[in-house]
Structure formats: structure tokens, C-alpha cells
């Protein structure tokens, strides 16, 4: 098949030479099209995953802030790009975003270290990178997140105290390997070891911060576990309660989540039989805080690289009021505007 043979060789050569020729005529300073949405001065958000309620709320929240900023003439449009929890995809997306030459990239990273290369490329190109929630180890990025180890200590103390300092506890992991999970877990363990020797860890399950997954995992653990007096969870506490209910077992002390479903359940239980717990979360509105930092960075202000984020706490006293205001899939949360952000993290 002579024709086939020739085309097999010619066509790729033609393709590659076309590329080469176009590359030859390139100048290293490329030109971007004058598309309004991608013009210099804009802010972009690279989000690693959109597939749960927290992330969706996070994006909604930041869009609200962006709308407010645009109305007030402080910034142009916000562009949001989501990947599918895929490191390679996010790297690719950030590279593409760099070509838009934004002033600031807000980043929710799929991996604490894998994006370092592309983050450095962005910094070298003069773009400021604000990594929030999931931290990164890249030295040039701003990092906004709670102190997870400290958070672990504090929250474990609450549950341990309510357990009376003794009994069996089950720990529920989030997405294993993330710094959030690692930090919290470290905090929980250290707290138990140093201050609560009479509390025994009888199970560790993977909850992936998802109610359904958590429920399955706890149910599995319950099939062999004895009496459980406390469960340490984060975000997916409702799933924990459902697992116990499905197994017709009394519900132990469960560290709470700020999600509407759990809050409603907690409020009811608290009213009916005085069920007592506490809940604190890094709410989705962290994106708003990151956004305002970003706006200020774009306008030339300077901040600390390390921005510790305060979690939003709910107690027995406040749960009734808060749960009434929170929809099932929403999270009770603080909100941020520019003033409150600058108050929390003063500019340098």
C-alpha cells in the first residue's frame, strides 16, 4: 500500500514542521488576546475538586465576594477552574491559567507538593499565589489554613471530656494522606496520649469526609466493635449518627459538623434528651477570606506568608438558633468582607 506508507511518513513530518515553523517565528514575550475575562489584573481560582457540598458552597461563596468586589469597582471578573481531584489535570490547568497573566491565583491544591513546580513558575511570572484550605509546601506561596494539629488537640479534648475521660473511641479519617487529615489525626493522638490514658482507640475508619462513606465505614466497624463511647469525626458527623441509628445502638458522643443535616439532628436531640457535643469547622467561606487577601495583594499590599484561619464553632447553646437558619446541605459559617479580613490579618 504505497500510498499509505508515504502518508504515514509525510503527514507527521508536515505536522511537526508546521509546529517548528510557527515556533521559530515566536517571540518569547507572547501576546494574549484582549479578552475581557482574561485581561491583566484579574483573579483566578484553581480548585482541585468540585464533587462535594463543601466545595460547591466554597465556590458559591467566593463568587458572591467577587460580585461584590466587581460592583464596587475593586476587581474585574473571577474565573473559576475545577479539576477532578487529578494532580496532572490541575497542573495543566494552572499552566493554562498562567498564560492568561492574572494578578493572583487562588489555589485549592490537589496535592501539597506536586504543584510546587508549577507554583514556582507562576511566582516567577510575577503572579501571587494564595493557597487556602489545602496547604502547599512551595515557599513562594501564601498559605491560609487552620492550624490542624492544634485543632485536633482542641476538638479531641471536647469529646474526651464529655466521655468522662474514659471509654472507647473511634476515629474517622477524612481523605487519607491530605495534610488536613494528617494534622488533625496527629492532634487527636497526641491529646489522647498525653492527657487521657484511660481512653482506648477501638477503631479507625476512612470516612472521606462524606456522609455515605462514613456511614458504611462505621457500620462495618460496628460489626466487630464492642461498646463505643465516643466518635471523633470531621464534616461527616451525620453519617456517623446514621450508622449507629441503623444498628439500633445508642448514639455516643460524636464531634459535630456544621452541616445543616447534623445541626438539625443535634438541635432535636439536645432539646429532647440533652444530647451534648460541640462542632467546629473550617467553613467554605475561607474562599472569601482568601479572595480579599488576593484583591489586596493585587493592589500592592503585602501580608505574612502564613495566614492562620479561625474555625467557626457552634455549641449546645447556639445550636438551636444556628440550625434554624441553615439549610440541609449548607454549612453554618462566618462570612468575610474586606474589612473583617484586614482586621484578622493586618497588612504589613
Amino acid at each position, binding site marked *: 500500500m504505497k500510498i499509505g506508507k508515504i502518508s504515514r511518513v509525510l503527514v507527521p513530518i508536515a505536522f511537526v514542521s508546521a509546529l517548528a515553523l510557527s515556533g521559530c*517565528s515566536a517571540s518569547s514575550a*507572547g501576546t494574549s488576546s484582549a479578552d475581557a475575562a482574561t485581561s491583566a489584573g484579574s483573579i483566578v481560582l484553581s480548585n482541585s475538586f468540585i464533587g462535594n457540598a463543601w466545595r460547591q458552597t466554597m465556590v458559591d461563596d467566593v463568587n458572591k465576594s467577587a460580585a461584590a468586589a466587581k460592583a464596587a469597582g475593586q476587581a474585574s471578573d473571577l474565573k473559576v477552574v475545577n479539576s477532578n481531584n487529578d494532580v496532572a489535570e490541575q497542573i495543566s*490547568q494552572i499552566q*493554562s491559567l498562567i498564560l492568561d497573566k492574572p494578578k493572583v491565583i487562588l489555589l485549592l491544591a490537589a496535592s501539597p507538593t*506536586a504543584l510546587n513546580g508549577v507554583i514556582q513558575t507562576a511566582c516567577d511570572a510575577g503572579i501571587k499565589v494564595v493557597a487556602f484550605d489545602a496547604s502547599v509546601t512551595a515557599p513562594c506561596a501564601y498559605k491560609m489554613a487552620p492550624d490542624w494539629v492544634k485543632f485536633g488537640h482542641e476538638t479531641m479534648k471536647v469529646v474526651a471530656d464529655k466521655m468522662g475521660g474514659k471509654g472507647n473511641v473511634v476515629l474517622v479519617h477524612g481523605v487519607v494522606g491530605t495534610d488536613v487529615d494528617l494534622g488533625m489525626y496527629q492532634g487527636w493522638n497526641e491529646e489522647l496520649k498525653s492527657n487521657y490514658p484511660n481512653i482506648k482507640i477501638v477503631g479507625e475508619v476512612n470516612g472521606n469526609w462524606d456522609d455515605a462513606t462514613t456511614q458504611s465505614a462505621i457500620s462495618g466497624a460496628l460489626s466487630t466493635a464492642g461498646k463505643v463511647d465516643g466518635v471523633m469525626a470531621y464534616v461527616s458527623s451525620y453519617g456517623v449518627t446514621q450508622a449507629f441509628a441503623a444498628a439500633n445502638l445508642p448514639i455516643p458522643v460524636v464531634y459535630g459538623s456544621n452541616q445543616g443535616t447534623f445541626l438539625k439532628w443535634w438541635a432535636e436531640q439536645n432539646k429532647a434528651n440533652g444530647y451534648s457535643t460541640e462542632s467546629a469547622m473550617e467553613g467554605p467561606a475561607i474562599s472569601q477570606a482568601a479572595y480579599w487577601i488576593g484583591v489586596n495583594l493585587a493592589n500592592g499590599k503585602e501580608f505574612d506568608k502564613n495566614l492562620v484561619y479561625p474555625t467557626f464553632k457552634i455549641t449546645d447553646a447556639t445550636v438551636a438558633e444556628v440550625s434554624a437558619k441553615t439549610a440541609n446541605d449548607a454549612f453554618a459559617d462566618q462570612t468575610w468582607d474586606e474589612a473583617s479580613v484586614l482586621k484578622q490579618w493586618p497588612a504589613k
Partner: protein
Amino acid sequence: MFETMGEAIGEPGQASVSVVNRLEIVDVAKAYGSTRAVRDITVSFDSSQISAVVGGNGAGKSTLMKMIAGEVASDAGQLLLNGETLGTGDYTPAKAHAAGVRIVHQELSLFGSLSVAENFYIEQGSSGSAGFGWRKRARRTAEAALTEAFGASHGILGSAKVDALNAGQQQMVEIARAASSPGLRVLILDEPTSALGIEYIGTLAAFVRQLQHRGIVVLFITHKMSELPKLTDRIVVMREGNLVADMPTVDSTTDGLLSIMLGGEHGIAMRSAAASDQRQHHHAVDAAAKVLVSVTGQRSQLAGGIAVSAGEVIGLVGLQDAGQEQLLRAIQTRSDKNIVRAGTSAYITGDRKSEGIFPLWDSESNLVVSAVVNRSSWIPFRKARLHAIAETWFSRLNLSGVAAKKRIVDLSGGMQQKVLFARGLATDAELLLLNDPTRGVDLATKGDMYQLVRDAVAAGKGVLWYSSEDSELQQFDRVYVMHDNSAVAEFTGDDISTESIMKSAFASQDSRREEAVQPSTRQRVLASLSALSRQPWIFAFIGLAIVLGVIDSKQHILTYFFGLGLILTLAPVLALAATAQMFILSVGDIDLGIGAFMGLIGVIAATSLTTNPPLGAALIIGAILLYPLLAWFLRVRQFPALVATLAMSFVYAGLALTILPNVGGEVPTWLTSISHINTMILPLPVWILILVAAAGWFIVERTALGTRIRALGSNPSALESSGWNVTLVKVLAYALAGVTAAIAGLLFAGIATSGDAGAADGYTLMSIAAVVVGGCEFLGGKVSPLGVVLAATLLSLMGVMLGVLAVPPLFTAASMGVLLLLVMGLRRIVTQARKA
């Protein structure tokens, strides 16, 4: 009786001056459980005569030949070639090859996706040289062998893909290939003329005569009594595992042979059924009978088209592969709008293995399946009723009850054929479509089948029957002569004869030849476009061009060296991963563990490779060795690759998480600096992509190993029979994949600058998508290294393109899915259009 196509060629019975080779079979026996297939046979064959081994159903001829060729181990006795033992117990096809023994089976063992020349190369076994220029040598060998066997006008190019040849040409290649093996001493041909065009039988006869004169022992297994005097000097008759007669061909008669084969009285009934001189039916067809099928349009050059009515037996004849089988299939599957089928039909085939039997079932189930599914798909059936149906047919077919429960693959060919026959008849269909159902079947069974057809016709069925045997012409009321996918002539009653058929078939051929015209420019352009569209990588290429175009329109990427390099940074990683997947695919497997493996490599790179380079290197090599180890397991234990690699993905992930439970580590600087190398003319990723494509293409298409790998994907059993160590080939293919995947993992780690066990997981499914979009096929081992790289680049850029088009984030996942389906759908549309 012995009608020949002209003069007998050569001089049958004339002994050549000296005996060069001698095959002795001494007390050889073989039993399968309680069935004794071959019972203590002693016979010898030498090169002074061409011999045929004939016999009825279950006579043991095939088993005996397989033992000579090393495919089946004998239970007792010895095989001696020129006084030296051929080995018992550990006598393999490879050893047979080495000793110069070759067998050409009824079922062809060619590699469809390889070229004729490559097939010849594989056939030579490990003795074939793979040095520089081996391809050219192989091509010359192939063409020379074909010319020697079949004359200069065979018209088969050494570079032609075997898939593209018709059945007759394939058989010619098969025979020429076997006959040309160096050091050939014994050549066994099992039904060699079954697919061969009649025009070549004479040439074959002359060719084997030459071989015999050269001192080669030639053995035939054949059922075609009429060919015996043409082809053979000596006839050996087997019956029920014993040797019952041995005579010169000149001393034999068909009747005599039959009665020996059938052992006496039984033969009389068969003979009268099978070998009668008279026309089988003389009845006039009822003009009011229902027309069961009528074919018009391109498939018939006759005024009335092709028509079959109830109560008729119509034959489809002509040269091999003239479209008879395709017509029958088209009628059965209703795939042609020019075919109007007015009733139910059943398709009965002689090609049992590929389109007839259901290999995992017993013969009873194979029999009743069509009848059952015709009734109702959704209402449960009662077993007892089906047992009854099966029993009725088993007794009609003279098959024992024991055979009913056996797996159909354990039955002999003739018995399988009977079961398939019964399957069609059991549906009570109005029209029976017979695709050469007596191919390779013994005479007694043939007789039974002819009777079944007669009974069916008497009951009012219509029969359309493709036959490749002259002796069956007597069965037909009318015949249509097919040539080049179209009916060119029609004969009725006494006009039906081999001469008249051949004349009309050859006449068409001649007239066609005269019409050969120079193609116009427009036709040339269309032809080259068509050839282009056949390239497996073309869709990936078009897709990539479109995606680049879209991105460029928004970001002028193609003129922006830095930008192009930036968005293509990860494309080489996917290209490498997809190439690794391609190596696995080319041996017919799939790898679901590649992403996890890359993560493992990355983790090693971020830990030991930095802190303790020799250890790190050793670990990486160790990890790579897991691939060939897996291949060895897959071969020895016959695990399905899909599940085994899925299991391995857990193992890789587990190992990676054990080495590095938390994300981190530090990749050595030499690795991270690779992605920062400055290059000229083209950005670095593009150079890497070109390199990967070129290397992949060279390995797969140009090296001997690559040919062997593709052969494995195409036809594993044939590769084994040729004497190659299939396990070794598979292991090497997997080793290639492992090395490529490791490079991908290292490159990825260099870009990510850290270790993360799960970070590369997405590459598993993406590499599969790239391989498919790039034009590779899951079955048959057809791969396209260029297509794979193009597709990988395309997929890497899809995300960027969606971003550039400002597709709302919630739609990103859907867009990927839709785009994948679009590319595949486009490919399908074009393939369909090309067929029309």
C-alpha cells in the same frame, strides 16, 4: 468417477531413484480417557511416494498427524525420522520444527495483522535471523516461496497484510510458508484444497510432486476421493484408530475405499446416498411455492436476481471466495436492503470454530439454543422439554447420548458439524442457509447430512447451499455461479456440471481483466484519501488539529514558544503511559495498574533515589521487574489480565503508601531539572513526544521482537506452534511496558517535584482512552504508536481547551465524556461510509 480437470499431472506411482527421508511410526497409541483414538499403529512413510491417510469419523487420522507434528503427546510407541527418535513425552511443535516436520492444518494459523513476509519470518522460529535487513530478506523469501509453489501469477505481495487476503490466498501463503521452511523433511497437509481455488489445485499437485522429488515426505489427509489420483501415490486407510489398509493409489477405487473405511455393510447405505451418479431430485418446483428470499441489486448480474422458493435446493458455486459466504450471512443477518427475506431462516456453517459453536457449552445446549431463543426471550423455559427436543435430534443424527453431555469442543469435527446441522433444523426455519457444511467431514457424516437436507426439502423447506465440492453438485435443482460477489450465471438440472460452472466463472474473470482502465486523477485522489482514512491514527490527528486550532484562536499558542511548551508539559507523561499501555495491548492484554505503578516509581524517586541513589535505582529496577513477573504469571496460570492488573494496582498502591505514607519526599534535582531544559526550534515536550512516537514505532513495526509481539496479539497458538517461546515474548512485551511506564513515572515525579502515591492514578484510565482514541484495537493486537502519541497529546489538551472556551466548571466532566464519544462516533461513521 475420478473426474480430473485435465491431464493427471506428474506420474503417479513412479518411485524416485533414492529415498532421502523416512518417517517411521512404531506402535504409537493415544487414548483420551476411555476413548482410544489411535491404537498401536505401525507404519512408515518415505519420500519415494506421496501418501494420503483417509478414514471416516473418529478414525484417528488427525490425531496421528498431530502426534507426528508434536502437537499431541503420544501415550506409547516411537516416532523415528531417518532412524532418530523424534521424542516422546516431551516432543513439542518447536522440536518438530527443528527436526524438519511441518503440518498445515485445516484451520489456518496465520497472523492476520502481520504482513505475509512477517508471517514467513515468524514461521522460521528461533532459527530465523533478525539481523539488519531482515525485513527485506523475509519479503524476498515469501515471494519466492509463493512463486515456487503456485507459479508466478499468484499475485500476492510480501508486504500485504494477511487480513486483507481472501481465504484462498491465505491458504496459499500457509502452504508456501510451511513448504519453504529450511530443513524441511516431512510435510503434512490436512485438507489443503478445502479453501484453495480450483485453479490452483493443479499447481499444488505439481508443487508437492516437486517436493517429493526433492526428498521430502509428503502426507495428505483428505476426504476428497476425486483428488486422490491427482495428488497421491499411496493410500493408507484408518478406521477406529487402527490401520486397516495400505495400497497404491492406482489399485484403489472409491467404492473399495468406502467399504474399507466403513467396514462393510454400513457402507452400502452410505454409498448409495453419497456416491450416486444420478441426480437426486427430478421434481419440478411448484410454481406457487413461496419465494423465501430474493436478492437483487449488486449481488446479481442476472435478470431475475437470485431467488429461492420453498421445496428447492439451490447451490451457490463458483471459485473460492467469490462472495458465496457473504451472501449467506447477509441473508441471515438481514444486513442488505437488496435482500428480501420473506420468512424464517437458519444458518448452518462449516466454519465451526469461528462462527458455529459455543465452546463452553455441551453439545446438547449447542443444539437447542437457536430453537429456544426463537420462542421467547423472557419467559422461563422448562428443561425437560428441551431435553426432549435434543434427544429427538440426537437419535436422528446417530449421535450417542454420551455425546450429548460432553462439551462440544471434545467432540470430533464431524460430530460437531452434525450438532450444528441439527441446531439449524431444530428451529424449523423455512429457509436453510448452508455454508459449506460438509467441509472436512467424513463421508459417512456427509451422507447423513445429505439425507437431512432431502428430508427438510421434502417437508417444504427451501435450501440455499454454498458448496465447494464437485460431488455435491448432484444435490442441487439449480445453481448460481458467483463471481466477485455477484451471481453471473444460472444453471438448471442437467446443465449443472463442473465444466459449465468453471467456464462461466473464468469467463467473467477474463472479461473483467480486459476492462482494467487507468484510474483518473479524481480516482487517485479518492484512493489516497481512502488510504489515509484507513490509518488508525487519523482521528487522533484530526482531533488534535481541531483542539490546537481552538486553543490557538483564543491564546495564539502556536506562535508562543513558551506557552506551547507550558500547556504541553504533561503531554509526554501521558504519551509514555499510553505507549506502555500499547505494549500491553499489543499482546492482547490490558493494564489497570499503570497509574498506581507510576505513583510507586514516583515515591521511590522522592525517597531512596535522593537519599541513597544506588538503593533507589535498585528499587526502581525491582519494581520494573514486577511487570515481566506478572506476565509470567498470566501465562502460566492463565489469569485474566484485566483483573490481575487491577489487583496489582492495589499492590503497587500498598507498596507506595508503605514507603511513603504521607505526601512529601524530595525528588533528586537532576530529575526535576529535566523539564527545565531549554531547547531549540520546538519546545522540549514536543521533542519528547516526537522521540516517544519514533521509538514506539520503531520497536513495534521494525524490530523482530515487535513483530513477534504483534504476532502474539494476533494468534497466540500459532506463534507457539511455530516454535517460539510465547511466554518469553509476552514477558519481553511486559518488560518494555514496565520500562516505559517507569520512565513516565519518573518524568511525572520530576514535574511534580515530590512523591505522592496516588497522584498518578488518573493515568490508568487516561492511557486506555488515549490508546483507544489513537486507533489501537483491543482484540487482535493491532496497535498504532503514532496514533497513541497523537491521542495522548489530544487528551492532555482537552482540559486546556475547555478552559479556553470558558466552559462552566460544572460541565467539565461532561465535556470530556462527550468529546470522547464524539471522536469515537466520528470514527465509526467514517468506517461505515468507507464500507458503503
